[in-house]
């Protein structure tokens, strides 16, 4: 290598170093992304964080966004909650120690989610989460900057129960759920809705969480004139119930699953007469909507991953990133999370999901209902918004 | 001939046996006598491999110190331990059968028949749980269980402990019979009068050492021993 060549390399390198400063027209907005990238909850949070990264990359690739007369791009700062509440608290703390982070998204499971949400509320940053326990936090005093990107049970049920009535032709169902607070609120929401839709609720039973042998409790559902079972709310419980119902016999073979996957019924598809589940974002396995088909192509290109039954969680926060931009533009600020939150609340957005946030910060969105019937799997979009 | 040379047993810091040497010629009845804690049981347990020891233990040319109990039993040295160590919830028959644990099924059956013929009590109580027998009956079962293995050398620890005089006489009769049949027997005993009555050779143990040895008459003539064991 000759001296001239070397000099030219040094020159161009120093030019490159100078360039961003010299040409800086765009500023960055730091977006915190938090979630369980490892551990048992990573099945939810890894796709969810992929979705945020994907939205950010699309926004930045299009040149960023203008707020006032400045153009901004997002830069993502990510922390792993490792599926554990204590680690989640420190991960949140770590994000919050960067004072430039005023907007945070992530966490779909309640155990690590609650400590994260509490830290975020205390620090007065705008936090959009997805986990169920957030329903109890959103809209309460001191938590005005918390928003939940998924429908509450109440909202989802409004689309789910009519679909169950229509698709499975149910007349009389039994409800079987674990004995905990979530289930109790599910029963409170669904029982009247079933009645409104012309379905009797014959029997409600709560089993001990962690139950593996459902035979004795399932016996209670025999000879009750039931044509369907409403079950929840985790995949392993649901699969065990379906499997053991078939094993014992004399039980309904139509299942309404208050859960987000067809997994529990997959192996028993030819032995049951119907299975309904909730897709809280959009159906990616059997998409009918062109917006969804297009998104899947972009998702695959961006993440280099295939679509799995868990992938739909990537849509949890995807549209909300675009809504956040819109809210910043309407509020005219990238530094005042309260002003931005105020604009997000009440905003409706027609993205890959059709969604809105209500005045409290709860999402109200259209969802897809998954149906497994006669050996076929398909989904029906439910308009709720 | 059973020979023991410079046998030592220690439990951590406690030296229970401190270099004991003696010999029991084939066919002889010998007795180790000594007060509580003298080290008699420790000696017998060392001979049957139940406790670790140093020194030399042999029968003729064959050394068996350091061997495991089952190998020693196979060699023909069997102990009736202090406290009898029966299997209390099992029947007398099962206890006896286990005595021949290392023998063939045929040997076991033959031996069981022989012993039941010899001790009618065993046949009578064959199905009774051993734990429900009286102390004397249990001692008999314990001896019979040891005999199931057809030993050449029998070690018995405190055969008379807690027995009534009539039962003591019975045990003595059994031991004499066995002696007559040619068995080599080593008894550990506190009861000196029993030992002198039955043994051909006495070994007096004190604090882990053998202090005197010889025929019973000679040993008992010794004033110290009479004072210590006969209270005269």
């Amino acid at each position, binding site marked *: 290598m000759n001296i001239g060549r070397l000099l030219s390399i040094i020159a161009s390198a120093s030019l490159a170093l100078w360039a961003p400063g010299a040409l800086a027209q765009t500023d960055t907005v730091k977006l915190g992304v938090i979630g369980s990238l490892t551990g048992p909850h990573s099945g939810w949070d890894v796709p969810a964080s992929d979705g945020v990264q994907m939205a950010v990359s699309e926004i930045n690739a299009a040149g960023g966004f203008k707020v006032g007369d400045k153009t901004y791009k997002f830069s993502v700062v990510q922390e792993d909650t490792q599926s554990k509440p204590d680690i989640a608290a420190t991960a949140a703390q770590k994000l919050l120690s960067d004072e430039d982070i005023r907007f945070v998204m992530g966490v779909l499971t309640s155990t690590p989610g609650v400590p994260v949400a509490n830290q975020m509320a205390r620090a007065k940053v705008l936090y959009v989460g997805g986990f169920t326990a957030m329903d109890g936090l959103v809209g309460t005093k001191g938590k005005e900057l918390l928003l939940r990107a998924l429908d509450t049970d109440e909202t989802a049920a409004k689309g789910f129960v009519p679909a169950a009535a229509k698709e499975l032709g149910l007349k009389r169902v039994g409800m079987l759920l674990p004995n905990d607070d979530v289930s109790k609120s599910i029963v409170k929401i669904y029982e009247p809705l079933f009645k409104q839709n012309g379905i009797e609720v014959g029997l409600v039973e709560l089993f*001990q969480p962690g139950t593996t042998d459902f*035979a004795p409790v399932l016996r209670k559902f025999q000879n009750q004139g039931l044509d369907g079972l409403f079950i929840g709310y985790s995949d*392993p419980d649901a699969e065990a119930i379906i499997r053991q119902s078939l094993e014992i016999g*004399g039980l309904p073979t139509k299942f309404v699953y208050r859960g987000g996957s067809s997994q529990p019924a997959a192996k028993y598809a030819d032995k049951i007469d119907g299975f309904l589940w909730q897709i809280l974002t959009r159906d990616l396995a059997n998409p009918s909507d062109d917006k969804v088909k297009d998104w899947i192509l972009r998702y695959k290109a961006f993440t280099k991953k295939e679509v799995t039954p868990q992938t739909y969680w990537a849509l949890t926060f995807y549209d909300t990133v675009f809504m956040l931009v819109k809210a910043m533009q309407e509020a005219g600020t990238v530094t005042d999370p309260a002003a931005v939150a105020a604009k997000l609340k009440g905003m409706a957005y027609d993205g890959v999901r059709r969604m809105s946030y209500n005045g409290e910060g709860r999402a109200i969105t259209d969802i897809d209902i998954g149906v497994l019937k006669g050996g076929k799997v398909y989904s029906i979009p439910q308009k709720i918004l | 001939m059973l020979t023991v040379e410079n046998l030592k047993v220690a439990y951590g810091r406690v030296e229970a046996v401190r270099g004991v040497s003696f010999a029991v010629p084939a066919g002889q009845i010998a007795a180790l006598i000594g007060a509580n804690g003298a080290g008699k049981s420790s000696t017998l347990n060392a001979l049957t491999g*139940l406790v670790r020891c140093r020194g030399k233990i042999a029968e003729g040319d064959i050394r068996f110190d350091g061997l495991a109990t*089952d190998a020693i*039993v196979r060699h023909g040295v069997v102990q009736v331990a202090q406290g009898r*160590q029966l299997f209390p919830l*099992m029947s007398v028959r099962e206890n006896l059968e286990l005595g021949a644990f290392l023998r063939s099924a045929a040997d076991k059956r033959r031996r069981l028949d022989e012993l039941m013929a010899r001790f009618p009590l065993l046949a009578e109580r064959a199905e009774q749980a051993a734990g429900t027998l009286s102390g004397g009956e249990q001692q008999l079962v314990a001896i019979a269980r040891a005999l199931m293995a057809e030993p050449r050398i029998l070690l018995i620890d405190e055969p008379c402990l807690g027995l009534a005089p009539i039962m003591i006489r019975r045990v003595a009769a059994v031991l004499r019979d066995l002696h007559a049949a040619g068995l080599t027997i080593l008894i550990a005993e506190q009861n000196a009068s029993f030992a002198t009555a039955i043994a051909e050779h006495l070994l007096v143990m004190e604090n882990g050492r053998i202090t005197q040895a010889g025929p019973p008459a000679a040993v008992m003539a010794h004033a110290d021993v009479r004072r210590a064991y006969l209270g005269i």
Partner: protein
Amino acid sequence: MGLDIAQTLIDGLMVGGLYATVALGITLVFGLVGILNFAHGQSVMLGAYVTFFGVQAGLGFWLSAALAVLAMAAFGAILEQLVFRRTLGDHMAGLAVSLGLIMVIENLAAATFSPDPRFVDPPVSGSIMVGPLQLSSQRLLVLAISTALIGGFYLFLQRATLGKAIRAMAQNRQGAALVGVRVSLVSRTIFTIGSALAGAAGALYASLFAVTPYMGNTPLTKGFILAALGGLGSVPGAIAAGFLLGIAESFGSRYLSASFRDGYGFILLILALLFLPTGLFGAGKARV
């Protein structure tokens, strides 16, 4: 109503057989070797995984179950050799070690197999009518197998020479040594058999319930309740207690509340400890 009671009773017997198989292993090891082996539940879990992977590899259920039994037998022998041999006679050390083992095995399993629940295709499916009773075929099969295992094992203890040596050792360790039983060898045998039984229980569990790294805990706690209920160390007691618990849970969940399912075992335990402090059969006859 009568039909319902009969069905509930049989449901109870079917899980009871599983409980009894696990409790048998625990009581055996405790009664004979004096070790409360908390890692026993992990043998159940590992046995279930061996079955799952065997079935997945196309070996079929029976071969996989046999493999699970063999693998767990080896696992028990290794554990005894490497760990429990050194804690003999020291209950606290044995306890600490086995508690530590739970952590190690469970976390290793979670890391290797992932915590996702797995379901094994059972050898038979659906239900059959036995007279007027509608019963799960697989559960009946499990009941038959566990009864055969328990019965066979009981006969082995009563009749076989090695079985007698095991009982002898439980009643008097020194006495057993005196007749030529090699106590250390028998201890290892017991560990091996106990763990093999756990492997069998694991295969049976897997044929009915989800396989997860944490599945060992419930059988373990229940196994300990049963071992205590039966009078620690008593084989007939543990077996009877296993079936009793299965029946109690079944009736409790059927006619009382299913949300209290695991509580019925503890109620039984507390009652047993209060009124039968020496176990179901009393101390005398109990034991092995």
